[in-house]
């Protein structure tokens, strides 16, 4: 929990007193002194104190996205209005779907005296307008900094307003100065099971906690789970709520999402499968279910490429007691056949991979499988486990390719751009925010991950499974072929 929450509203940062005005506090180090002591960085060696064109987003964005994948849920950002508007806008530009995120709309008074009355009004208004089953609260930087105690607020609120059929409420702490959007996502999923999972007699159910993947990925995962004949809880599941049909009438809350009941049942499942090597062993939803309900947690990498998909399907095979369905064996076979057909076009090509750490680890492993050299694997994430994750995702025979690889966590796009000039890659693979770098170097950008703001259907891109690998492979090969074609005067129509 927040290390700041022990402070009361607006305690001064310099003297820790509650009645002090921080801007005039006498214990505060005067700026003149700071000037003396701050090292002068006149040279252009590295910009260490500023982030330039961030390769990450803020924590509540991830939480809101995860909450959007729960049936009947409305996310509520406890803090000021701008955050929710910006986050909505950012998500909407990717998904091209309405995404309602409410805010408790802090004012100056709430920042000083706490947002308790705003919170209560917000819940009431949300209930009236949206009739949600779940009100999913995330605390922004502002409410976190003033030390808002959500447990107490929930308590107070319920004491006054509890009634039969009141929607559930869940809270996740998402101060952005701790972690990135991916942490917000995983923590929100954890908060959901913490609040909603219940124990019960062990079932055949499998919990699949996929992390932040595309709507197409979620669809595909559901298909796979069904083909193994397993009852499952996929959490979250925004495959429908963020990629739905056109409506005849406005739906307050879009249909789709993990049902609340299915979340409750995660506590009695036979197994949790959690994607993401960088989150393995941290305080995730899977870990919680293991500790609290003894549901074993199997941590796998995102099933991108052959090796990681094999591992995923094997796990499902064991859990279901079935062999891998013929459909997937055939998909794998066709994928391998196409890798053979195209191997010369990609061998030895140099790529820069960027994005969320686990996505990078997965893509990197896949690139190595097909003979591409990832020369730089970069992420704005700062888990410190990126290198480890990449290693884990690599089957032993491919480790060799790691020798030449630069792996950098906590970087921004300005740094990636600077590295790119030096590394001269043949292509970039990642979200659409790397476009300017690709344009400058005049190399293709293979769009994947989040966000895709400059193409339509970014959320429908498939990354996972053999099918996702097939799509990625075709796109990479074709982009390289096109670059070759375009870069030549001859006008080949036969490549």
């Amino acid at each position, binding site marked *: 929990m927040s290390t700041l929450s022990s402070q009361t509203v607006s305690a001064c940062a310099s003297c820790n007193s509650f009645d002090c005005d921080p801007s005039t506090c006498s214990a505060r180090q005067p700026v003149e002194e700071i000037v003396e002591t701050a090292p002068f960085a006149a040279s252009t060696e590295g910009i*260490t104190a500023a982030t330039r064109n961030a390769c990450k987003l*803020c924590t509540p964005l991830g939480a809101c996205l995860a909450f959007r994948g729960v049936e009947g849920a409305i996310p509520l950002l406890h803090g000021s209005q701008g955050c929710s508007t910006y986050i909505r806008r950012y998500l909407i530009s990717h998904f091209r779907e309405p995404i309602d995120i409410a805010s408790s709309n802090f004012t100056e008074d709430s920042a000083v005296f706490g947002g308790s009355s705003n919170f209560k009004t917000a819940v009431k208004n949300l209930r009236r*307008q949206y009739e949600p089953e779940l009100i999913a609260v995330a605390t922004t930087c502002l409410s976190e900094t003033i030390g808002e105690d959500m447990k107490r607020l929930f308590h107070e609120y319920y004491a006054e307003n509890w009634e039969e059929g009141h929607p559930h409420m869940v809270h996740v702490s998402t101060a952005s100065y701790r972690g990135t959007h991916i942490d917000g996502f995983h923590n929100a999923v954890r908060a959901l099971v913490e609040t909603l999972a219940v124990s019960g007699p062990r079932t055949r159910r499998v919990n699949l906690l996929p992390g932040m993947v595309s709507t197409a990925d979620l669809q595909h995962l559901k298909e796979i789970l069904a083909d193994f004949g397993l009852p499952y809880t996929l959490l979250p599941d925004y495959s429908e709520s963020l990629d739905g049909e056109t409506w005849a009438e406005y739906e307050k809350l879009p249909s789709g999402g993990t049902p609340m009941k299915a979340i409750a049942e995660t506590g009695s499942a036979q197994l949790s499968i959690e994607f993401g090597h960088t989150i393995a062993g941290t305080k995730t939803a899977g870990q919680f279910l293991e500790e609290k309900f003894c549901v074993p947690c199997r941590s796998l990498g995102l099933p991108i490429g052959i090796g990681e998909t094999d591992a995923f399907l094997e796990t499902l095979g064991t859990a279901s007691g079935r062999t891998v369905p013929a459909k997937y064996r055939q998909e794998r076979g066709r994928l391998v056949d196409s890798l053979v057909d195209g191997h010369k076009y990609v061998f030895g090509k140099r790529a820069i991979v960027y994005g969320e750490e686990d996505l990078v680890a997965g893509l990197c492993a896949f690139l190595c499988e097909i003979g591409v050299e990832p020369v730089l694997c970069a992420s704005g994430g700062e888990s410190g486990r990126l290198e480890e994750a990449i290693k884990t995702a690599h089957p032993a025979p491919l480790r060799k390719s790691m020798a030449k690889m630069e792996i950098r966590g906590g970087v921004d796009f300005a740094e990636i751009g600077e590295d790119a000039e030096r590394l001269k890659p043949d292509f970039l693979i990642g979200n659409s925010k790397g476009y300017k770098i690709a344009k400058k170097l005049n190399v293709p950008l293979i769009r994947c991950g989040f966000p895709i703001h400059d193409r339509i259907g970014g959320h429908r891109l498939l990354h996972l499974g053999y099918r996702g690998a097939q799509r990625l492979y075709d796109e990479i090969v074709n982009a390289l072929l096109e670059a070759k074609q375009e870069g030549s005067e001859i006008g080949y129509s036969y490549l």
Partner: protein
Amino acid sequence: MKEIEIIPEREGQVQRKGNVSAPMACNKKSAAGSVSQRACVFCGSRVVLYPISDALHVVHGPIGCAAYTWDIRGSLSSGQQLHRNSFSTDLREMDVIYGGEKKLLLALRQLIARYKPKAAFIYSTCIVGVIGDDVEAVCRTMTAEAGIPVIPVHSEGFKGTKKDGYRAACEAVATLLGTGSTEDVKPHSVNILGDFNLAGETWIIKKYYERMGIQVVTCITGDAKIEDIRRAHGAKLNLVQCSGSMTHLAKMMEEKYGIPFKRVSYFGIEDMSAALYDTAKFFSNDPTIMQRAQDLVREEVGNIYPQLQAYREELQGKKAAIYVGGSFKAFSLVRALRLIGMQTAVVGSQTGGPDDYKQLAEICDEGTIIVDDSNPLELAKFVLEKDVDLFIGGVKERPIAYKLGVAFCDHNHERKEPLAGFVGMLNFAKEVYSSVMSPVWNFVPRRQPGRAHTGMPSAQEKSVSLEEKTP
């Protein structure tokens, strides 16, 4: 579906023309728990200052506020592109606990050394407002040290509404005024205030004035360089577009430098022409200016009129909903739509004032819904109730329109086609036409009664309709 309710706190912010008792209860903070389409104070400042292309824009706070405003607008620059970067102090937990001044100072040193900007704007975000960083002092220090203006922008998100952000931006700009030479400023000269050069719109407008023989000293802030702003006080007249954002600056300039200002709009033929004529009238000591304005308008309108007529014939009688940031733009849009035969059934803005809404009501038809600071549920309700054919708004409204199967025109900061000026009117008509007349609406549920969810008729439905047709 259950009726969508209007939150009681918001009832004073929705009116229907012909049935109004009290003035619009606007200028209110958004109700807690509503999904407002508004952003924050910071957003207001950021959009106004964003186009200043040779300045460093540093967002002091955690990463989100900066990340979400990275290169999001279509403001073009004829020179440097520094503004298209997102610089943030990316505060971490330790900075929040011990204060972020040191990090800000270091960041500024490093960034100024690297990018050699002509000035720097430092935006305070919410968190800075509560941890109490002395941003002013850091800015003073850096101004002295780096020899360029390092200007604090007081834009803590929770300290008001987007309008307060505009104000903070105006005040930041004002610190630069009067510091440059006005030697080459001519007697017939203006500043364009409140145009942001989206898709090059400032350039279009500037050319019109130049053709009239009027010098455009500075545009604040479309394609503005710091040098230009420094000498803006030399102009004889300020032309204020986007009244919400720049009136404050215009008033400050009037007070301090005696420069009068006029409110103008460059959207639609009527408003565009009025803007040119009003300016010409101001410089009535030279009658050739009015002559040239008239020639210009005649020529430009002549160029686009036949095409506009063609669009008008097709669009006649269609209905539109408008929801935009500033109310002044809403006026122009109502008129521009009328010019192409369309009627406005719903109109609203994020930040209008009581007078704006009164004026809006005057130019709208009976029964038009007028709304302040709306939200997705309300907007959807109005769109359905009025059965509109077109929605004009920004990126946050787009999915509401599309989800309901309604055509959409982006009239916000992200647009990539110029919509201002005479040529802009034509672009606007073209854009409206190409959305409203698209054949895809034939398949959406709204236009296929009885097929609530899927566009394709089910097998059963098909056989029924076949039977019905057989005599």
